[in-house]
């Protein structure tokens, strides 16, 4: 018993030496702040891109037959937009996010000195592809009869989407969307590649300065884990509540 207490005391002293002395924990807090900023910013961009791309893809799939027969300009516009969307999805999902991040920072936005906005853009651009497919799956999961019922009442395509399909889709995708959010949070840990001090980079930096990696990296891991557990808890509750309102 005495040994265990001694061990714990020794650990606390070590923790204090590495994390508290020299205010090194501030680095972790700053890193956490950047991780949050990048995650939320990227999610916002990703959702916007996702909505646009999913809208293009589903409306093309649903309307191509009708529009082809009517031979409007709209058909060709949609055809081009759909091709661009498909290209975007293929490239974004087919390359590693770290590579995309570095391309953004070192090539596309080579003039930028702050990596945070670049990281927000890069992760948002990447996440948009996944969110688009989540939304598209959600829209497709709504029974086509719902769509037909809306159209038969006289709603036009966009009204049918807005009043009937989207509300039902949203319910279906909310849990999956939250999971994408959790995945994004962990993905941002590679932001250090472009000089951003995020949570992971902070742990790594403290390890380098103190020549002791164990405590800073475990601390960082625990922080990620706690965040994910908290988020998952809310996702689960949400899922259960949505299922209940189904009756």
């Amino acid at each position, binding site marked *: 018993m005495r040994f265990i207490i001694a061990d714990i005391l020794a650990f606390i002293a070590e923790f204090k030496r590495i994390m508290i002395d020299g205010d090194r924990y501030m680095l972790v807090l700053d890193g956490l702040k950047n991780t949050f900023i990048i995650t939320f910013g990227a999610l916002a961009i990703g959702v916007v891109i996702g909505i646009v791309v999913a809208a293009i893809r589903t409306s093309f799939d649903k309307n191509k037959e009708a529009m082809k027969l009517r031979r409007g300009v709209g058909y060709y516009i949609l055809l081009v937009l759909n091709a661009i969307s498909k290209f975007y999805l293929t490239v974004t999902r087919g390359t590693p996010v770290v590579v995309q991040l570095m391309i953004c920072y070192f090539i596309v936005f080579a003039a930028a000195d702050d990596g945070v906005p670049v990281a927000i853009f890069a992760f948002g651009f990447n996440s948009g592809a996944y969110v688009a497919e989540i939304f598209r799956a959600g829209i497709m999961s709504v029974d086509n009869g719902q769509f037909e019922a809306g*159209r038969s009442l006289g709603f036009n395509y966009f009204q049918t989407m807005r*009043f009937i399909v989207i509300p039902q889709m949203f319910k279906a995708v909310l849990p999956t969307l939250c999971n994408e959010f959790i995945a994004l949070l962990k993905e941002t840990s590679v932001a250090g590649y472009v000089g951003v001090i995020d949570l992971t980079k902070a742990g790594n930096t403290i390890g380098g300065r103190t020549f002791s990696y164990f405590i800073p990296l475990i601390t960082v891991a625990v922080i990620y884990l706690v965040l994910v557990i908290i988020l998952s808890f809310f996702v689960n509750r949400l899922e259960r509540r949505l299922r209940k309102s189904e009756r």
Partner: protein
Amino acid sequence: MSDKALIKVTDLKKHYNGGEVKALDGVNCEIEKGEVVVVIGPSGSGKSTFLRSLNLLEIPTKGTIIFNGTDITAPKTNINKHRQKMGMVFQHFNLFPNMTVLKNMTCAPVSILGKSKEEAEKRALELLDRVGLKDRADAYPSQLSGGQKQRVAIVRALCMEPEVMLFDEPTSALDPEMVGEVLDVMKELASEGMTMVVVTHEMGFAKEVASRVIFMDEGIIQEDGTPDEIFGNPKCERLKSFLGKILV
């Protein structure tokens, strides 16, 4: 070729796979105001496709549909305007599961016709009362039986004050004991003079309510006549063998 025709269909064709499958292969037909037209035929005969073409849920490959004097198959036609005048009832009800019965009925009149919420709800409750479901106005579709769902679907379409009602096998997905309550609503509707086009397997309904029966097979209308003619004195061989199989 009377002027009374509410719907006039000329040479309607619907082909799939570039003509390999011919769901409709040249349908010609006129439907007058106040008529109750029942469409019968074996499965795969094109009767549902025909009905769904009338409000362009299926886009015809060829042919014209004149509704109220307007060619709705013309590319410039605003089909949404015409669909408002054509109520449709589906085999699988297609009620909106995330809305109450009342909301199901009022969402289209409020957002499309610009009716006030009170006005739309008043009308919806009147209609619900007529089909005996006024007390279920605040229920969700999943809390209703199949027959109740279909009755709600019928009055939902009526809320848009349509000029014609299209029924796509409205009783085929129902338990046998619920078929009657839906058919009763449809009979009442017919007796009030509503123009109806009904695809159904309910021959009893066809005999009793229809003013005209259309027999379809292989994508075309094989025989068209009064219920007495169709059921009492069928002319074409296909109709005879079809009736022989279903009227035991």
